[in-house]
């Protein structure tokens, strides 16, 4: 499909299938986050396309929000650039509608709940889900929406064929993990550490045990994020998780070197995802 044509209707289950296909090909899936509108809308689209071409199996498109309390300095600063341009979620969705026909991998929106909840009026979850599906997005990740409050969104998303990824953390109790496993579709987002987004020099030792606890509860793929920034870390995570999520490091590359730098880093991370999986 070429740019300009309407996006393909959403096919349910695309997110989980993309992760599983990577596994069948002998690697962990690579999931890349970039915010819409950084450094501007067109360049962010070019960076996302570059990531997909360079080996990302899934894309997370961040919709910048004024109060991103789950994000560290790198992503906060990038999102502020986009907000200062005056881009709205409507503009971000329009960019996604241009992006999705041009890439072969599924893309999810990652944003904060108030933007989804407020889209087109008060408490209009259905409105956002409809437009996200229309833009060709395959699912959503809302880091400030815990599974316990997630029922209304899960219902709206399901009605439009969107996957709903929920997050688990090392400190999550068993009952919480049960709820996450039950409510999530696509994959479970396992936080590698207690903290916010941002590149870290060393990954903690908490991720593998969390993945093991989740495996006992769900047959959905489990992907690990927070702090992964290079090939070696990607390989480390790929040795025990189904997918590796990278955000801040790619955002930094986008800011410093645009689509070329993104492609270079993503190719390197994808190599790590193969190496780690092979070492299992």
């Amino acid at each position, binding site marked *: 499909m070429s740019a300009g044509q309407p996006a393909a209707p959403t096919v349910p289950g695309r997110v989980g299938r993309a992760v599983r296909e990577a596994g069948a090909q002998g690697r962990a899936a690579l999931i890349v986050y970039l915010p819409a509108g950084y450094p501007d809308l067109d360049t962010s689209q070019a960076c996302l396309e570059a990531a997909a071409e360079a080996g990302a199996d899934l894309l997370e498109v961040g919709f910048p929000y004024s109060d991103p309390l789950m994000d560290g300095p790198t992503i906060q600063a990038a999102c502020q650039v986009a907000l200062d341009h005056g881009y709205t979620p409507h503009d971000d969705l329009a960019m996604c509608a241009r992006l999705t026909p041009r890439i072969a991998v599924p893309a999810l929106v990652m944003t904060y709940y*108030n933007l989804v909840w*407020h889209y087109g009026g008060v408490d209009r979850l259905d409105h956002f889900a409809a437009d996200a599906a229309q833009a060709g997005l395959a699912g959503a990740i809302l*880091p*400030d929406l815990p599974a316990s409050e997630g029922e209304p969104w899960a219902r709206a998303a399901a009605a439009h064929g969107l996957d709903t990824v929920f997050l688990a953390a090392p400190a999550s*109790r068993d009952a919480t993990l049960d709820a996450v496993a039950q409510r999530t579709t696509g994959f479970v987002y396992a936080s590698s550490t207690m903290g916010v987004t941002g590149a870290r020099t060393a990954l903690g030792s908490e991720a593998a045990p969390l993945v093991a606890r989740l495996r006992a509860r769900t047959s959905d793929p489990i992907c690990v994020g927070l702090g992964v920034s290079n090939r070696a870390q990607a390989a480390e995570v790929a040795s025990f998780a189904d997918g590796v999520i990278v955000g801040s490091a790619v955002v930094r590359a986008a800011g410093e070197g645009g689509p070329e730098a993104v492609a270079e880093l993503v190719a390197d991370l994808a190599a790590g995802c193969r190496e780690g999986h092979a070492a299992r």
Partner: protein
Amino acid sequence: MTAAMEPASADLAHFGRFGGRYVPEALTGALDELDVAARDALEDPAFQARLDWLRRDYGGRPTALTLAEGLTEEAGGARIYLKREDLAHTGSHKLCNVLGQGLLAQRMGKRRLIAETGAGQHGVATATIAAKLGLECVVYMGAEDCRRQHLNVVRMQLMGAEVIPVESGSRTLKDAINEAMRDWVTSVSDSHYLIGSVVGPDPFPRVVRDFVRVIGEETRAQVLDRHGRLPDAVTACVGGGSNAMGIFHAFLEDPDVALLGIEAGGEGLDTDRHSATLTAGTEGILHGARSWVLQDEWGQVRPTHSVSAGLDYPGVGPEHAWLRDSGRATYTAATDAEALEGFSLLARREGILPALETAHAVVPTLRRARELGPEGIVVMNLSGRGDKDVDEITEVLEATGQAPGAGAQG
């Protein structure tokens, strides 16, 4: 401690459709832990005894209820009383909350307190209880607020707290809350987030309310003792809403007592420069709870303005949203200019320098007193003292040519 309780039911976590817990899953465990500890503690006589002791012998409770003769004369209507939270240790109602949460933190085995602060009163109160209980203390404060409330920065530092200026976003209270939450996600195993108002994810709004409601309980008893009846109206300024919730709560079941919250109208509700969330906002989700928010049509939180740092906040506690919705309380706004007028009235007629936050409540309180007439009784929560604001007020008054002594220099 009694046997482990289950986390609260959904009913307890919400006020009608407001409240709830919209936070990263990483915080769920800590919020459950806090919920259980708080409900456990409220039923533990030893905890209550320790809290009562701190309130009385350390904090200076009960605080006085003062008949404001000058304001009463000025209004020419109902008798006006002032609930004197300015006389509590550290100079504001914020101490009630930190005494309770500080003891809870200790009970949960946390060694470090995180707090956000706007005007600095909550930061000072948290630094105080941290020093008293031997806990580490880190306070996040918007860089702009550090400037306009410098005295409180020094007070916190003198008590051993680390004050971290927040440069992100609008560099005010909301950004300080974001930064405090980010710290807490990272440090939750050994740190307690001692939130400063009846805001945030469940169980914070009800935990804080349960520690500040002593203000209204005292007020209710004091008015009954003097007049053998309840007041006709109770008033308080509202930013996040803790001092208002503190004085309102004991009267919720008394339908004849009108409850009036006064928000910061800034430069006027017809401008973008105000912080009147309940008066001019829309429903939304901010800082972990569904409530009212000052935001644009997309749900992006709007920059706010108030002459008082403590009211300069785009959200409000979910229980206030529910009280407004149910009609049990009403909310109005006072502008920066009205706050300065209220400050001046209290200073010149009562010999009390109130906090700029508190000063917002004065003019609407006088208006209500006039409406009620001479048989009426109004209580205004005098939530804090204004020493911290002296420089800021002088600057504002100088800008408008009303500075004290300005004439004498001429």
